[in-house]
């Protein structure tokens, strides 16, 4: 295992050098809130924050993305035929992604990269991205990454792990992709691996001890889908929900999308946009029938998808990394930890 030390002075210099070979994304403060965005030349990621308001899933999977273009002008030979457009899949790196958000990409991967069908947009963006994780020293009260199968220093889904030791950064090299990123930055001050590893381990234990949320997920797999579906607690769990959809937009593991055509004169595009199971239109049939036309059905769908359907379908744990965004941002204080406990303990 290889560890690199970076003085904080050479941090900016390295990032500047990386600008030639990578599109850099990082957290920056926009208006009142931090969010991930593509960094302008010379712009530094702001690593002073706990985590961004929205997850960095947009780096790989933008909220709106053009898929095809077409012309409706019948004088053109290829009118009404959809055409692929050029997209930028040059190397990109997301700097300062928290380990929970990085693992989220592995959680959604089986959906976009299934054996039978491959989503080319997600896969190409994902493969083009180097994930430079930023270890979490001060998890907050809504974080439950450890019980969700992740952690503040978790390495799954990361190419590099960046640890702030106050006077310098320590980088743990996890993959070859990460190694290439380091050489492009010109960061190569290798340090004693044992000492660095011990230091990081100590910090990891301290950080993990700060996560006090306890959520049990161990029984979910053994529950019967239809029993849980018909459970009596859904009405109460959904009671306060106003179906605003904030939870699904903020979530790093929510992946649902809509496909829409937009036309400007003769020119048009087909695009996809994040969608949300919280909205009635999501499942409304042309006939007017709607299999999920009540709030309870939609709230149940969100939790059942994350904590039961996904668990059964992929045998990859729950579809949640414990980032806590949905808990912090919910206007009516619906708490996935509580719903998970209800589900996990249902029927004794």
């Amino acid at each position, binding site marked *: 295992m290889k560890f690199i030390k970076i003085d904080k002075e050479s941090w900016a210099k390295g990032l500047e050098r990386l600008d030639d070979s990578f599109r850099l994304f990082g957290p920056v403060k926009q208006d009142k809130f931090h969010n991930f965005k593509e960094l302008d030349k010379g712009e530094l990621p702001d690593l002073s924050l706990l985590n961004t308001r929205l997850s960095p899933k947009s780096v790989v999977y933008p909220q709106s993305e053009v898929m095809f273009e077409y012309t409706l002008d019948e004088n053109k030979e290829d009118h009404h035929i959809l055409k692929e457009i050029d997209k930028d899949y040059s190397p990109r790196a997301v700097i300062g992604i928290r380990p929970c958000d990085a693992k989220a990409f592995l959680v959604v991967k089986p959906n976009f990269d299934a054996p*039978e069908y491959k989503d080319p947009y997600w896969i190409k963006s994902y493969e083009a991205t180097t994930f430079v994780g930023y270890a979490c020293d001060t998890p907050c009260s809504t974080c439950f990454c450890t019980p969700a199968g992740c952690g503040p220093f978790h390495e799954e889904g990361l190419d590099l792990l960046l640890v702030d030791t106050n006077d310098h950064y320590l980088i743990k090299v996890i993959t070859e992709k990460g190694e290439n990123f380091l050489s492009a930055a010109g960061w190569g001050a290798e340090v004693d691996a044992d000492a660095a590893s011990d230091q990081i381990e100590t910090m990891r234990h301290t950080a993990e001890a700060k996560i006090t949320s306890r959520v049990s997920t161990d029984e979910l797999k053994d529950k019967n889908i239809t029993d849980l579906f018909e459970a009596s607690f859904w009405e109460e769990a959904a009671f306060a929900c106003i179906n605003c959809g904030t939870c699904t937009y903020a979530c790093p593991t929510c992946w649902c999308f809509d496909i829409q055509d937009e036309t400007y004169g003769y020119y048009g595009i087909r695009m996809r946009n994040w969608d949300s199971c919280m909205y009635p239109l999501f499942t409304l049939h042309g006939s007017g029938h709607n299999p999920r036309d009540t709030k309870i059905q939609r709230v149940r*769908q969100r939790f059942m998808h994350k904590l039961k359907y996904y668990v059964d379908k992929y045998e990859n744990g729950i579809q949640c990394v414990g980032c806590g965004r949905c808990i912090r941002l919910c206007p009516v204080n619906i708490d996935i930890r509580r719903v998970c406990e209800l589900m996990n303990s249902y029927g004794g």
Partner: protein
Amino acid sequence: MEVDDFILIEQSSMVNSKRGIKVQNPYLPYPVRIDEIITETEDKNLKTFKLVFINPDDEEKFAYKAGQFAELSVAGKGEIPIGIASSPTEKGFLMFTVNKVGLVTSYLHAMKAGDIMGIRGPMGNWYPWDIMEGKNVVIIGGGFAFTTLRSSIVYMLDPANRPKFNELHVIYGARTPGMLLYKDELAEWEKRDDMNMHITVDATDDPDWKYNIGFVPTITDQEAPPGDADTYAIVCGPPIMIKFTQPVLDKLNYSNDHIIMSLEMRMKCGIGICGRCNIGKEFVCKDGPVFTLDQLNMMPKEY
């Protein structure tokens, strides 16, 4: 066996960006031309579209089985999931019968022969043709849900396929004679001696009507053979028809794994990715649309 074949075909034409093979985009429709539009019903709300591939090679890539569906794509309007009404044994064109209900279907109804549109697919699973080989097949359909059933009947009646199946019974009903789909074919099938065709309407004042009058469940009760290990029922129709046909099939001793149904859902991607058409952990677009009643009974009642 057939499912494995299907996945193999899909994989061979699939992305492997790591190996640098050109990525085939499953969202990109094949361009097609509307060859013919037939108004099917007296209310003019159902039209059949015959589509021809603009690039002849695409027809081979679109190899399908009876019971599958496709996304019809109209540039500037969007896409709709529609069951394939033509049979794999009919070459040179695809056929879809579309009910006018929303944005895309209304626009489609106003299009004309010669117009260009797109098609993605084939999608979903199909009726279990391998399992039904050598068995009796009872097709029970109502209203405009008869499209993939037409595909199935034409497929089974193909001279190369008919010997593979034992008895073939078809019960098909609509509200009135004018609301039946594919009227010319129905009349021809009625004359054949290698199938038992039972056409019915809910009501009619036409003195020349020579077929049944009565709801589909009633005619099923009168005409369907009793259920046994060698008899499969394929049921497609409006929810009310399904609700009242099920007790009839129970009475006739059809077991739940011999009752086959095809579901509809709002869909976008059609390939199990966009997340909206699930019933429990199954996606109707990818794991369906065809399920046995046995399978449906294990899934949440959310359809």
